[in-house]
């Protein structure tokens, strides 16, 4: 994997000063996710409107991969229902594990397809999935 395929423009853009990195007032859910081995931390905040994810944002610190992944995930699921969001998390995790490789199926992941080949960099897989796991945990509670 070349560095340019890892640190793509999309990933770099989302990792630097993302508009999704902020605090939400009166959030319904606040969930902390972290990778103890490397110290990355992400706090997701979600505000619902009924079953719809009305607003979602993150704070925290970590590498470009974990930060960009959080921001791209937020773009993807904002405005969706819980069920739709969880389906998308599953799809993302299956892409990472190479259980789904068909581009047509992956299309709905939009920019998150940028992480498709992260399994070629085993040390960074944890960074890419941090936000998605955190979202899943927060909704399954």
């Amino acid at each position, binding site marked *: 994997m070349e560095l340019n395929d890892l640190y793509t423009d999309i990933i770099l853009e989302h990792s630097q000063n993302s508009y999704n990195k902020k605090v939400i007032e009166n959030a319904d859910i606040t969930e902390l996710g*972290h990778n*103890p*081995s490397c110290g990355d931390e992400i706090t997701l905040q979600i505000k619902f409107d009924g079953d719809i994810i009305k607003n979602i944002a993150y704070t925290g610190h970590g590498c470009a991969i974990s930060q960009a992944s959080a921001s791209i995930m937020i773009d993807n699921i904002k405005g969706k229902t819980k069920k739709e969001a969880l389906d998308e998390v599953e799809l993302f995790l299956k892409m990472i594990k190479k259980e789904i490789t068909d581009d047509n199926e992956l299309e709905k992941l939009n920019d998150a397809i940028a992480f498709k080949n992260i399994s070629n960099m*085993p*040390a*960074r897989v944890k960074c890419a999935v941090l936000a998605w796991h955190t979202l899943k945990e927060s909704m399954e509670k």
Partner: protein
Amino acid sequence: MINKEEIVKDFPILDRKVNGKKLVYFDNAATTQKPLSVINAISDYYKIYNANPHRGAHTLSVEATEAYEQTRNKVAKFINARSEQEIIFTKNTTEALNLVAYSYVNNNLTSDDEITICITEHHSNLIPWQQIAIRKGAKINYMYVDSDGILSVDEIKNKITDKTKVVCIAHVTNTFGIVNPVEEIVSIAHEKGAIVVIDGAQSTPHMKIDVQKLDADFFAFSGHKMLAPMGVGVLYGKKELLKNMTPFLYGGDMIEYVSEQTTTFAELPFKFEAGTQNVEAVVGLSSAIDYIEKIGYEYIEEQERELTEYALEKLNQIDDVIIYGSKNIENKVGVISFNVKDVHPHDTATILDRYGIAIRSGHHCAQPFMKHLDLNSTCRISFYFYNTKEEIDIFIDAIKKVRGHMGYGTK
């Protein structure tokens, strides 16, 4: 068909001369020899991808981590654990058993409770429980065996009581090679609400282990007794039990958050693996498992049965040899304890060594058992699949000369 000559060639040490004679290695219950594939796996590790695992984003560290974690996975499948989270790497069986004593029993035993163990246990599966019983003021119950080393179901039922919290038992004894009725023990213990710790040091090298079928709560074994390098052992534990246990060794890599006054710990299995782990030995264990699976347990059991039958038959024909323990081959692995009449086992071992033959003599780390059978010391031979009938012939010829060397009859 597997060719024995090819197998023997896989083990470079078997080519060695001892005191001018070809080495005959019959001390496999103490530690086995290593095939070239394991020795090369170690060298390759240090020549190609040695690094501290779990800690680095760099390629060597990633490769070392993968080799380490893939072996965990392989071990889980090898003993049929439900999940690789149930596999903890230790330095040997002894550390694995002590981990259970410190991290489980220490928190789950009161002075009203009892620990039940068998009189045949190896010191490593005896002293940890004895000492914690002393510390807690709890009682330690011994299950006794008959003079053949056989444990009866009645004895098991008598000694596992309503107060028993922990039962510790060797799957196979290291003295006589007896296969204990562990499935019965587990079912009786579980009925009484006790957990069972199985010491698999002498079974795992010789028979297919299925921890789910055994329904063991904990199961421990050592790599070095099954072709792998020294320095790696395995503790299997049921996830529900491991999860609720306090850590044992504290240090790097087993943590989540550390602050000045408190620490939260990592998930299973990392919670129990503190400090730099022995990736080299784990890599060697992986290669050893490959070797065992390549030749298969069927071959291993068949070879050992043949060797044991042959050796028992030949030894039986010598008047001045006393064989200890059950000779029922159905219930036994390739371990034979014996003495030469009037000759102390150390002298027998010294004499055999002059003929190139390596055997073990002494109390075999089982003093209470020896006392129970009123024995001071015995000789022990123990086979692995690479041993041959020709080696047994050499051994039998030498045994016949022992008394002569000690001044009995003609030299």
